[in-house]
């Protein structure tokens, strides 16, 4: 009984405090700017408990934007492995979901799910800030 009480408290805490790490794996930085817009006054995600973190060690959610190019492939796995265990991966934008406009280029591997297990796909090119917030709330409900 105690165990699932503690589990419930942990889940509640994790739900209300998602620390996000953003990594652009080769995109056109349209989605990155929209992600940074989340921190600005109009969309302010700090009220949802979401903070942008710099170090993979501190982050719970890895948000990837852009198609995976062959050169960033090595970097992605290294960062994903550095993050502490209850972690999630969010694919932001259609490039990150499926490779988008650049799907048939030979230096592009396609979406992020070719390298990492993805928990949440947010479509859009570039994705709207409201869509990102909607996605993150869905992620919170799933925890």
């Amino acid at each position, binding site marked *: 009984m105690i165990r699932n009480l503690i589990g419930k408290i942990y889940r509640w805490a994790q739900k209300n405090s998602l620390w996000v790490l953003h990594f652009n794996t*080769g995109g056109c930085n349209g989605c990155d700017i929209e992600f940074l817009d989340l921190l*600005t*006054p109009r969309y302010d995600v700090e009220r949802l408990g979401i903070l942008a973190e710099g170090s993979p060690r501190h982050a719970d959610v890895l948000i990837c934007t852009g198609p995976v190019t062959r050169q960033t492939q090595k*970097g992605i796995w290294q960062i994903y492995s550095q993050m502490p265990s209850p972690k999630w991966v969010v694919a932001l934008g259609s490039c990150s979901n499926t490779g988008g406009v650049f799907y048939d280029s030979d230096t*592009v591997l396609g979406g992020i799910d070719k390298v990492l297990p993805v928990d949440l796909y947010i479509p859009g090119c570039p994705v709207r800030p409201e869509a990102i917030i909607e996605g993150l709330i869905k992620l919170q409900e799933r925890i």
Partner: protein
Amino acid sequence: MEKITIPIGPQHPLLKEPLSLLIDIMGENVLGGDLRLGYVHRGIEKLAQTRNYVQNVPLIERVCGICSHVHTTTYCYAVEKLLGIEIPARAQYIRALMCELERIHSHLLWLGILCKHIGLDTIFMHTWHNREMVLDIMEELSGGRVSHAANKIGGVRFDLDQDHGPMVVSILNKLRVEIDKLRDVVMYEPTIRARTQGVAPLSPEEIRQFGVVGPVARASGVDVDFRRDDPLPPYDQLKFSVVTNQAGDAWARTLVRVEEIEESMKICGQILQDLPDGSVEIRASRRVPAGQVVVRAEAPRGELIYFLRSDGSDSPARLKIRTPSLTALSILPKQLSEIQVADIPVVIAGVDLCIACADR
């Protein structure tokens, strides 16, 4: 103290996009750095050859998320030159309006990022809050906040009806009040000035040697602006002054970009004032006659050059894009030779890198 090498690797809070910069430092001062690009290379020039001219417009728009409209404008002018057609004056003016709005939002974005990197999050928040106004205008006009799909070969996809003009003018006036406040803060705030003055100065000779263009060149006194020197259609009828500064350090680049926001707002006012009426597009044939063309335009970061060769079929034979960020990147290692570790963010942000542009 032995030499350490800091990897500002593909993922770093300083970089929005992946770029590998190995900086070797001794204690607090930086000895030098070398650069590795290619993380964002999607082979757009090769992809352009597998798509026809009309399909290329959305592809070219995704070269860079911040200056997407300038890319499609240059591409469409290149194709129209090959076709030998001239788009109606109203379409040229609307294209120029979107270009200037994009320059405003790009410079505001840059100002926020610079202040964020030197620890002043308040200005980052205020600048980006004001930037939302510009994005609202663009969304109102073209339907898209960042990539607007405004251009097509032979004209523009949307038209400005009567209440668009006054709406844009009113929002721009509101924006001007906010930006004057921001400009005073950036000008007279002691800590911003302390962090950016005298950091990584660039002499005009270095600028000319490395062929650097845009605000970085203008901040060192090199007076090159492709809206005036090699103007695309509407700019030769518009009156504007090119902002230059002699100091050439990060502080001068800040001032040049803030002044340019002011300049762009004046241009938008002029465009809206004498907007010719008429149709917004003309029919353009899908097959482009054989020929080669070079078109130069002024992107928010400097000279953007497109080389296009067509061989009569409906898809380009060769498309070469050279973006201004490539020149800014070529001069970055040179700037990293006599600064402190704490100045690295100011230098990297000062050059306003758009790595998606540089790597194509």
